């Protein structure tokens, strides 16, 4: 009963998610110092993985592991920067709209809904194509300003429901300023949801950057997982059978995304208690079914669940 409601409970999912996520973050921060220059082309071309080159080399003789390490840095920077921009925008368009209500809400929600139905990738492409040189930051910026609408919808509905709670109305009556109510009363209750949306936005931006790179609209002159896949495709890695070139970057994107999703699951169980209570309640029901023939129906399983729920 006295459990902490804000921090996720420690579960296998959470631990696995954190290990994967942090592992890749550490890889992105530390590994670039330990590998050779990712653009050093003195190695032999298309070497399969060996002791010298753990993940082999590319067509231009670049070391794949070195590229992967620097690419991790690039991809994470894009992901975090874009997600930060998207979250700030979704805070404005979601929480502020949901709290303010009235005409402000109508107009902000209208903008959100318009952004929601305008197809994302084509819009990003149309904007990116006019920029002749695109830095990593510019790509992150474009992905950020086009990818916030989904979170805004989620946050708005939650903020609307919080607005009518008693404790918020009490602080309004007590004469607290709107800014204070938003930051001190509303925001802390939205934190789990906000964290989940942020993690989701990071994955979304990394996938978006990879997609943009693949169609030639990625950052110029930077290495990301997306540019690696693109180079591999362009360098005919598939016909050459150089799986060590195109498999690792995509796999890392997928694994990183899965890690963040697992963390999100644990957060979800905080936000939506039904998801966690039910697993235990089912345990009870199955225990009941199993013990039914033994003439004592529900009672043996009952006390146990009282403790855990």
């Amino acid at each position: 009963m006295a459990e902490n409601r804000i921090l996720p409970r420690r579960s296998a999912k959470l631990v696995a998610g954190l290990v994967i996520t942090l592992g890749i973050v550490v890889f992105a921060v530390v590994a670039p110092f330990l590998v050779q220059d990712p653009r050093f082309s003195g190695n032999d071309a298309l070497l399969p993985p060996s002791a010298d080159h753990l993940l082999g080399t590319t067509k231009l003789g670049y070391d794949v592991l070195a590229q992967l390490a620097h690419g991790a840095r690039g991809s994470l920077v894009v992901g975090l920067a874009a997600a930060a921009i998207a979250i700030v925008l979704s805070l404005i368009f979601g929480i502020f709209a949901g709290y303010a209500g009235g005409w402000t809400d109508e107009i902000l929600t209208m903008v959100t809904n318009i952004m929601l139905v305008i197809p994302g990738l084509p819009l990003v492409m149309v904007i990116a194509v006019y920029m002749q040189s695109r830095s990593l930051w510019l790509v992150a910026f474009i992905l950020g300003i086009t990818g916030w609408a989904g979170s805004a919808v989620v946050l708005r509905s939650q903020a609307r429901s919080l607005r009518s709670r008693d404790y918020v109305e009490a602080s309004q009556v007590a004469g607290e300023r709107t800014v204070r109510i938003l930051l001190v009363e509303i925001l802390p209750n939205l934190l789990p949801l906000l964290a989940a949306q942020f993690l989701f936005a990071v994955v979304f931006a990394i996938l978006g950057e990879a997609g943009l790179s693949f169609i030639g609209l990625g950052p110029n002159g930077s290495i990301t997982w997306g540019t690696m896949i693109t180079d591999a495709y362009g360098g005919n890695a598939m016909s050459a059978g150089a799986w060590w070139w195109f498999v690792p970057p995509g796999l890392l994107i997928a694994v990183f995304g899965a890690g963040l999703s697992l963390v999100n699951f644990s957060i979800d169980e905080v936000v939506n208690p039904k998801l966690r209570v039910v697993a235990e309640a089912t345990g009870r029901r199955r225990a009941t079914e199993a013990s039914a023939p033994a003439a004592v129906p529900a009672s043996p399983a009952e006390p146990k669940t009282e403790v855990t729920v």
Partner: protein
Amino acid sequence: MRYYLRRAAFYAITVWAAISLNFLIPRLMPGDPADIMLAKMARSGEVTPGVERTIRLLLGSDTDQTMWEQYVAYWGNLLRGDLGVSVTKFPTPVVELISAALPWSIGLLGLATIISFVLGIAAGAWIGWKRGTWVDHIIPGSTLLQSLPYFWVALLLVYGFAVVNPWFPRIGGYDVFTFDGPQASWVFAGSVAYHGVLPALTVVLSSFGGWLLGMRNMMVSTLSEDYITTAEAKGLRRSRILLGYAVRNAALPSIAGFGISLAFVVTGAIVMEQVFTYPGLGKLMITAVQGNDFALMQGLFLVITLTVLAATFLMDIVYGFVDPRTRHNG
């Protein structure tokens, strides 16, 4: 009725916003796209004054017209269905290129989306129903599916089933060596289906996980509702509770999501189409981007956006019937 009027008004405003955005983006960007395009066109053939005028209206350029006059003239061109002329396929009108590519994207993506939805919902319902047992261990695996970059999946499939084991064709929407162009015959349809296997599999693999997770979570929530307990207490058959009580209610959000996915089918799986050189809208968009074919790109963006809007509007109306609650909260 109020609900439908509100939705109609919303979509009218969104259409206006999308078209204005299409008008504004090229004008806000650095450089002079119209001049770049016209210079390219001049290299590949004669540019008539009419074409030049259209291009300048589409992309903006220093003319003596005010912004407002340009905006009005731009609308005039749109209403006449004139989206300019492509540079990469000079002098084919943009409208012609788009209408040739549209059926490919809709056919492939539409079919793949339906398959993925049916499989995902069925699997999600089953995993949700069996919650608390060993099947829960499938869930973490499905998160991996969900965050796969889909063009990377396409690369793996090409590598596995077109390069290492040459079972399926690598590129194209049909066999270009046998057929000069699309034709209405069974042989041609067979060729299209054969070429569509790997692209469709890519879409199914990378979107299936999302449907599964969404449906599973809704199933779990729904199964804890009181009316399920009541149904169990009444001693209804398990299959009846599953299909008539749980799945029916749990599927509602997924059906809404399915509607939206269907609406977005026209955007094609842009990057996936690039991998397979599939002749859909996505491939066309990439051709436009790589050739700095701004007119084609703006035209595509406009057509894609308007089609998505029309489709989501339709879905809103349908969903209003399926779930009457939306009509009152909308």
